[in-house]
C-alpha cells in the first residue's frame, strides 16, 4: 500500500510525466491558451490514462511478454517487439470510445474539446506511460496508480500553464521570445518548482 502511495505521489510531482520526462508537450503547448479547454483536456487525459494503462498491462502480460502465451499452449513465444503497435492500437480504440461516450452524454463538453480528443491518441504521455510500465515491470495495481498519477500530474501542469499564460498577456515580452520561447522558459521554471517535492519523505 505504501508502495502504491509512493508511486502515485511521485508520478504527480517529482516524476511528473511532462515536467520531468518531457512527454505530452504538443497538446500541452497548443491547448494551454484557454483555461477551460485545458481543464477539460486534462480531465480527459486522466481518464484515458487510467483506462489505457491497465488495458495495455493486460495485453502485454497475457499476449506479448516472453512466456505470456503459456495459457494458449505457446510458452516459448516472445512477441514483445509488437508492443508499440498494439499499445497504440488499444489507445486509439479507447480514445474513440471515450469520444463516442462524451458525444452521447455531453454535447457542450464535446464541442469544447472537439478536435483535441483524437490528439490524445498521439499524446506521447499516454503511450509513454504504457512503455514505462513495461520497462519498470509494474504490477497491475502499480500500473493503475501510475497511470492515474501521471494523468493528474499532466492535468496540474497544463492548468498551471494556462493560468500563467493569462498573466503573461500583460507582460512585455521581447519579440523573438514570444510564443514558443517564453512558453519553454515558463515550463522550465515550473519544472524547477515541481522538483521541490523531491525533499518530501513519506
Amino acid at each position, binding site marked *: 500500500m505504501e508502495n502504491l502511495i*509512493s*508511486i502515485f505521489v*511521485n508520478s504527480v510531482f*517529482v*516524476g511528473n510525466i511532462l515536467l*520531468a520526462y518531457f512527454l505530452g508537450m504538443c497538446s500541452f503547448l497548443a491547448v494551454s491558451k484557454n483555461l477551460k479547454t485545458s481543464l477539460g483536456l486534462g480531465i480527459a487525459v486522466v481518464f484515458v490514462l487510467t483506462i489505457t494503462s491497465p488495458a495495455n498491462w493486460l495485453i502485454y502480460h497475457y499476449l506479448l511478454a516472453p512466456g505470456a502465451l503459456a495459457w494458449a499452449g505457446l510458452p516459448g513465444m516472445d512477441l514483445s*517487439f*509488437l508492443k508499440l*503497435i498494439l499499445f497504440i492500437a488499444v489507445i486509439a480504440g479507447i480514445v474513440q470510445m471515450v469520444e463516442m461516450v462524451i458525444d452521447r452524454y455531453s454535447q457542450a463538453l464535446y464541442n469544447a474539446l472537439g478536435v483535441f480528443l483524437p490528439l490524445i491518441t498521439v499524446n506521447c504521455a499516454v503511450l509513454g506511460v504504457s512503455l*514505462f510500465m513495461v*520497462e*519498470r*515491470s*509494474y504490477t497491475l495495481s502499480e500500473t493503475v496508480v501510475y497511470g492515474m498519477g501521471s494523468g493528474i500530474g499532466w492535468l496540474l501542469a497544463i492548468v498551471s500553464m494556462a493560468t500563467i499564460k493569462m498573466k503573461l498577456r500583460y507582460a512585455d515580452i521581447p519579440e523573438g521570445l514570444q510564443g514558443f520561447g517564453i512558453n519553454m522558459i515558463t515550463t522550465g521554471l515550473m519544472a524547477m518548482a515541481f*522538483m521541490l517535492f*523531491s*525533499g518530501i*519523505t513519506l
Partner: protein
Amino acid sequence: MSDSVKTILFATVLCLVCSLLLTTAATGLKVYQRENALVDRQKNILKAVGAVDPAQRYSGDAIKSLYRDHIKCVSVDEKGEVLSADTRAQQTIPLYLYLEGDQTQAYILPVNSRGLWGRIYGYLALETDGSTIAGFSVYKHSETPGLGGEIENQWFERNFVGKRIVDAQGDFVSIKIAKGAVADAVRKDLQPNYVDGISGATMTGKFLTQGLKDVLQTYEPVSIHFRNQGMLKIPEKALVCQPPS
C-alpha cells in the same frame, strides 16, 4: 470492386507485409540482442571487481574472454557452502567468484533492490576477508535521470571501494547510503560503513540501502566463511549456478 472490399483488401495486405517485415527483423536481430545483453551482464560483473576500466571501450570478444578466464559462477546453499555437481539441493543461490588462476580474489553478489520507480539491478563485489567491499556497479535501473540516476555514475560507485560491511567489533551492519556527504553527516567511527548520498535522491538512497542489506544478509553465510577462513572451498566438479533472470 466496391469501396469496403477495397479497404479490407488493402488493410489485409498492409497487415501481412508489416507483420512479415517486423517478424523477420525481430527474429533475425534477436541473436545480436541476446549477445549484447549477455556481454553487458558479463561486463558489469567484471566492472564490479574492477577488472575492466569503465572509461574504456571493450569489444564483445574481449569481455567474453576476460569473463571466461576470471569469473566462475557457482551455486551455494543456505550454509554458504559451494555445492558440487552431484548434489541436488533445494534452495541454491548463485555466487560469482573472481579468480586469478586458481586463487579466489573476490566474490560478487547479484543485487536486485527496490528503487524509487522500479528495481535496481547491479553487482556488489567483496574482498576475500569477507568484510571489505571491492566494488559496486549498477547495470539497470529506472531512477530519475540526474537525481537517483546518478547511482550508475562512476563517482557514486567508486565510493563503495574499501568500505566495510562489519563494524569495529566485527558484527554485520551492512553498507549504508548517507544523507549527504559522509564526512558531514556521519560519526567518525561509523564512517567506514557509509557512502556519500546523492542530493535530491534520498528515497533512492533509502531503498538501495535496504536492498543491499537484504542481499548481504542472504549471503552472510558465505561472508562468514571468508571471514573465518579467507577462502571458500570449491569442490572438484562445482555445480554451475543458475544466473539470476
